[in-house]
């Protein structure tokens, strides 16, 4: 295990930036998002959760993958090449867990090569959560916020003026090696301090207001839950915006669109939302005519359909929808309404 003094981090960013595109939680006009680091950027490692999840890096909101050119009857198509290798620093354990859920979808047959390449070019550095907030409920999905999460190449812990650093994967080890002049070995004291902080987390978690969320308590099969009367009531306040799906680290629906750039143009993939009225609109009609069907689709997908296919819920308890939904129709309320709550811990 290594460490670096927090006031040395700017040097670290600079060094990483020389060889990689570096993404960090950066505050811009009051909003903290993962964005590329530049000297003077307002890095905010204390922000518990970024507005936009780091999904935006491995599965960008807009991604051009094809250019085309038309000349008379001729059509020219060209695949757009990908960006350079990148490092994402400060990914919270819940968000790291979300990557695996996206992998299930995109790396399943047939493999999405664009996504695969994006994933291969990235190095993930996690940052443990030592102060989870009231909207957090990652424990409902067996995620340990204080841990070094599976899927991170390097795990870090923020101990006030120190950042502890542990390489996890082969990639992470080589990366750590290359930064050896900035990182020093930890002392016994540092380890002890970390253990203390980690031990204190359990109490903090049990104190959280949403600690009783337990999706596994939801009873019934696919068709039963689908037909539940709960949906008749739940959807009513939904405004039909797509915020929950866009800030969600596990939502992965997308659209493919063409841009007409005057004789030539490009085709891109962009996020889409099952909350939007036109999502399933076809020439001969729309199978989901009201917001009820759309709301049901979103939560059925997260809590029933996805688990049927991949044996885990499509939610990591990051709390983004809980914090952001304009009418507070978040997944916690849906899980509880469906009976997903436990009385004792």
């Amino acid at each position, binding site marked *: 295990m290594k460490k670096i003094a927090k006031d040395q981090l700017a040097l670290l960013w600079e060094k990483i930036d020389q060889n990689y595109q570096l993404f960090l939680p950066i505050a*811009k006009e009051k909003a903290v998002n993962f964005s590329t680091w530049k000297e003077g950027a307002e890095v905010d490692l204390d922000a518990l959760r970024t507005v*936009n999840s780091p999904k935006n890096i491995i599965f960008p909101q807009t991604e051009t993958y094809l250019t085309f050119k038309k000349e008379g009857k001729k059509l020219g198509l060209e695949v757009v090449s990908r960006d350079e290798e990148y490092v994402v620093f400060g990914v919270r354990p819940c968000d790291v867990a979300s990557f695996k859920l996206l992998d299930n979808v995109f790396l399943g047959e047939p493999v999405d090569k664009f996504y695969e390449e994006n994933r291969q070019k990235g190095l993930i550095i996690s940052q443990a959560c030592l102060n989870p907030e009231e*909207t957090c409920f990652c424990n409902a999905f067996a995620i340990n916020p204080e841990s070094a999460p599976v899927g991170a190449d390097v795990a870090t812990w923020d101990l006030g003026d120190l950042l502890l650093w542990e390489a996890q994967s082969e990639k992470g080890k080589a990366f750590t090696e290359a930064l050896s002049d900035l990182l020093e070995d930890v002392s016994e004291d540092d380890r002890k301090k970390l253990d203390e902080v980690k031990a204190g987390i359990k109490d903090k978690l049990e104190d959280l*207001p*949403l600690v009783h969320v337990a999706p596994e308590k939801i009873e019934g099969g696919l068709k039963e839950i689908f037909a539940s009367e709960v949906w008749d009531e739940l959807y009513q306040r939904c405004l039909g915006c797509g915020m929950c799906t866009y800030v969600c680290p596990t939502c992965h629906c997308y659209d493919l669109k063409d841009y007409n750039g005057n004789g030539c143009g490009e085709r891109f993939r*962009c996020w889409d939302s099952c909350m939007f009225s036109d999502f399933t609109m076809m020439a001969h009609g729309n199978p989901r005519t009201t917001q009820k069907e759309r709301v049901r689709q979103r939560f059925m997908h997260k809590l029933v359909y996805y688990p049927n296919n991949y044996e885990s819920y499509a939610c990591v308890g990051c709390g983004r929808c*809980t914090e952001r939904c*304009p009418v507070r129709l978040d997944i916690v*309320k849906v899980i509880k309404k469906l009976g997903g709550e436990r009385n004792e811990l």
Partner: protein
Amino acid sequence: MEKIKEEIRQIAREALTGKKVDIILAWEKGPLWYDSYPAFFTKEEEVDSLTWDSFCINNLSKYLLEETMADKKVGVFVKGCDALAFNQMMQDNRIRRDNVVVYGLPCPGMIDPDKVRAKRLNRGLTEVKQSGDELIFVTKDGEITVPAHEVYYDKCLYCHYPNPVVYDQLIGEKVAAETALDRSERFSQVEALEALSAEERFAYWDSQFSKCMRCFACRNVCPACSCERCTFDDDDLDILGKAREDSEDQFFHLIRAYHVVGRCIDCGECSRVCPQDIPLEKLNRKLIKDINALYGEYQAGLDPSTKAPLVTYQLEDADSFTAGEKGGKGT
């Protein structure tokens, strides 16, 4: 507000049992301290979970669109700003008045959870009680008293209409209409931007707009955005592309703001719901300010029988383009 809450519950129960209405639109409390959200009550026994506290920020008028379309009798609780929204939707012919019973709620102001978090009052917070001009934050470690205006939404501090301008029944006493801050000051941020150079203004808005994720929360929450089908939603029209591209973000925000010109009641819901904290009220207020300057003071939602500024004209209207800033007379 506790007392009013009981009164509201009673009114709701009576309206439902007496079949005066089919649905009551009010608020319900969730598991978190700030978690008051819109709720639809159809049965008397459900009304026990109805709430009224300093977090009932959601404007329920917006829901009348769908509900009255379904030909139901609706009872709705409105705060001051919600009443302006109600009137605006009436003016836009988006509400069938006969189908609605409006219960007016004088509003002392609503608490901005972000301001509470900024003051670190949220740790272990269980409840917030109101006591005159002060708020008592009940936490696990005791009570903290804070002057209300320190944690109210900015928009509440400028609010001139805390008492509903339209209602069938008013609940409780009217509150004083004096604003905590000088009302003309709501344009001060607009003026600060106007004072910058074109380059600075563009840089400012570019960095704001470029945060936009195009989730459309600002549009969907807006009482003036009440079209049955938004032109941006029609895939085939391709008016707004789906790509995250600066020009598309700019296009969306300018058209959104422009589309509600003269109908924006300045309720600030668009800015409140924006996940990326884009200060949309600075666009809306610029337009309100210009309307006031060019065509006379106008508050949308005050009187549904008037015409919105952009659907009418005066022969002698000023314009902003023929001779300097405001000159030019019609012939």
